[in-house]
């Protein structure tokens, strides 16, 4: 089977730090923090009250009139807004008729329609036996976003939804890349989406994994993550097709790697074994040497365990060179958007490659002896990047690493 090269020709995002990919570029350069008080639900009784919320989100004015917002959950609506931005950015909106049979949708999900459904469930539990309004459940599952997008755009290519918790978005991009690489589709809308909701917020709080203020990845006094929400979408396209139509190319997807810790459901393997495997597999898949990596967009959640173990895994894989590779956490700006994180950070990686800069880690002020890499804490840097690695690690020990390359680029990948 001849493998095709896969490039990214469109980007879209909605997150707490920015409402579009172009605004996200400037937010990342400025080190803008989107974390603040949560208002999408009443957080008064929770242990913490902050998060990376997309304040005042309303999909209607952000979408063209041909796209309906009927029955879209908050999660679906953010996915739709980011998908339409990415399609428009790629010059694929409206989708050309001839492309519909060969265009697919692959989404990484999380809580899906939980925000709406848990409210129905809560009212039912608190309403003395009254039957819940089950109609809210038509968009319950996280696969609803892909169905809405493909349905409204009349696409007929492959459609799938991954749910590997905090690595869903990255896994979706990796899988979509395989589909385009092997010719199962010419173009794919892929990414991830995640809403803030009470059950997720409560779950992370009960695990005492949330920083009550804002997350401080790699800082000595970090206390946990900040939950966030949003969507990140990109258009993957077969290189020949993109070239033929003269599309702008943000970068190439060179490879990805997936592994499992097989250690514990919620705590990472203290040796970082699964993380090393995922990164090594991404490099192997791409045929790229560890020496070629210019920047690592870390999983960097801000939990004491993750940041220490991720640092250890990077050192294990890159050896002495680890100290010379800039590593930063965009979650310090967006919060941890769970199912969307891998995709939003994919968008970060491609913006960094295309525009030639390294986004910073904000809120990291006090050095931790166990986190002693270059975390880009002084602010964004200009840099001519060629190869970027992006990590996503998750509950269940599900790890995915993506490898992005500048395009065009000499001497990289299988030719």
């Amino acid at each position, binding site marked *: 089977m001849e493998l095709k090269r896969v490039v990214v020709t469109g980007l879209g995002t909605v997150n707490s730090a920015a409402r579009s990919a172009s605004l996200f570029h400037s937010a990342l350069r400025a080190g803008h923090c989107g974390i603040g008080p949560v208002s999408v639900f009443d957080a008064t009784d929770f242990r913490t009250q902050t998060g990376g919320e997309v304040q005042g989100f309303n999909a209607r004015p952000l979408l063209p009139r041909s796209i309906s917002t009927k029955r879209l959950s908050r999660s679906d609506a953010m996915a739709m807004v980011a998908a339409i931005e990415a399609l428009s950015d790629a010059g694929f909106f409206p989708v050309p008729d001839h492309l519909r049979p060969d265009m697919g949708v692959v989404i990484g999900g999380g809580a899906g329609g939980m925000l709406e459904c848990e409210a129905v469930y809560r009212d039912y539990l608190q309403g003395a036996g009254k039957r819940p309004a089950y109609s809210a459940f038509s968009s319950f599952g996280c*696969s609803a976003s892909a169905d809405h997008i493909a349905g409204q755009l009349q696409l*007929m290519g492959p459609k799938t939804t991954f*749910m590997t918790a905090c690595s869903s978005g990255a896994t979706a991009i990796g899988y979509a890349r395989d589909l385009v690489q092997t010719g*199962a589709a010419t173009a794919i809308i892929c990414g991830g989406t995640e809403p803030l909701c*009470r059950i997720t917020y409560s779950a992370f709080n009960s695990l005492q994994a949330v920083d009550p203020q804002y997350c401080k990845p790699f800082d000595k006094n970090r206390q946990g993550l900040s939950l966030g929400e949003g969507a990140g979408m990109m258009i993957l396209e077969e290189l020949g097709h993109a070239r033929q139509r003269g599309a702008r190319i943000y970068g190439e997807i060179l490879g990805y790697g997936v592994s499992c810790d097989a250690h514990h459901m919620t705590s990472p393997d203290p040796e970082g074994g699964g993380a090393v495997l995922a990164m090594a597999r991404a490099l192997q898949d791409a045929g790229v040497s560890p020496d070629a990596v210019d920047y690592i967009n870390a999983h960097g959640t801000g939990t004491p365990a993750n940041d220490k173990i991720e640092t250890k895994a990077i050192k294990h894989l890159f050896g002495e060179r680890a100290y010379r590779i800039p590593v930063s956490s965009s979650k310090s700006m967006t919060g941890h958007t769970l199912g969307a994180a891998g995709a939003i950070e994919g968008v970060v990686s491609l913006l960094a490659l295309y525009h030639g800069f390294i986004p910073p880690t904000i809120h990291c002020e006090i050095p931790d002896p166990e986190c002693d890499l270059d975390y880009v804490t002084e602010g964004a840097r200009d840099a001519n990047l060629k190869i970027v690695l992006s990590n996503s690690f998750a509950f269940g020990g599900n790890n995915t690493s993506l490898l992005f390359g500048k395009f065009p680029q000499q001497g990289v990948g299988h030719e």
Partner: protein
Amino acid sequence: MNRRVVITGVGMVTPLGVGKAPFMEQLFGGVCGISPISLFDTTGFTSKSAAEVVGFSPKDFIRPASIRRMDRLSQMIAAAARMALDDADLAIGPHNRDQVGVMLGTCFGGTDVAAQFGKVLFREGPRRVNPILVPNTVMNAPAGHVAIELGVRGVNTTVNHHEVGAETALTYAAAQIMRGRVDAVLAGGGDIVSEFFFNVMSHFKTLSPQNGGDEGLRPFDVHGNGTVVGEGAGIVCLESLEGALARGASPYCEIVGWGLSSAPTVPNGWPTEPTGPVLAIHCALAAAGITPGDIDYICASANGGPRLDRLEAEALRQVFSATEQRPRITALKGALGESLSSGGMRAAAMALSLRHQSVAPIAGLVESIAKLNFACAPETQVPIRYGLINGISSGGTFVAVIFKKLA
């Protein structure tokens, strides 16, 4: 790069029994696993039946310490994975643990656990919730548990797509082995019957009897009046042919091609035109390098819901009606109920059909909606060279997978 992929082991926890021997005997004997619901009280519902897993004892398959950490779905899937590994006679050790993966499909996953968590959250407040429940609220929990229980660190992922999550996982797993990224994958999936989703499915009027007639799951039948919920887990052990042969395994069958497609509809809707499923089947045939006439046996998605059954019958008619020897068509949901992520059980059944050259009959079909070659009675010694699993999901997602008997 283009390695061949075979099934070397099967494992299942189903309404027709736990493990290969009882599953085979009942499935190929035409037994129906549907009975009155025992898991919860159905007072106030018109629907009263389900295909529930019976006689499942997790401790026969899973370490006691692990059982306590798993929800019911994870237990079923982990047990099925253990059985598949044992059936394949594949030992896991330091030499291969990084080269064995887990790929699952589930529709509801741990949503039942999330509801349990939410009950305390909404009744007693966020400071009273139980953190022990949290790991099992995520849909990828079963895959994580399987990896921990078996100690495997290869590719590990979970697909969520209504009725075709497990079929998609199967194709993704096969692709990973073909490309040499992993040597073996435990692939499949499962879902459980829960009161919560019984409520939801009742609300959306997907359950029999939709029309006031008799309750029952009647695939492809003119009297089909809705589906009946089912549950269970099925896992197949996939390996590269070379790897399987090198260690002296005797594979059940080979996976030779698949097709993925979609068609526009709303998340719980069914398309009215068969274009999507027809496209998926044609993609699968092309990938396998065969024509419709080569397919001998089809395991259909039909679940007794009139819209799905008519859509599928029309798709199969369009692709296969012109073939000289029309393929025998079965629909296992008649016996297993609609368990959503049924692809693992269906793949295991297909592997058994190819090895034993046997056809599983459609339980519940009396008067068919189309002139197709439906399997109405148990049959053995049927020449089956190529088998097709047709996956159709509400929301308009389609997966067709082709299996081949090994010469």
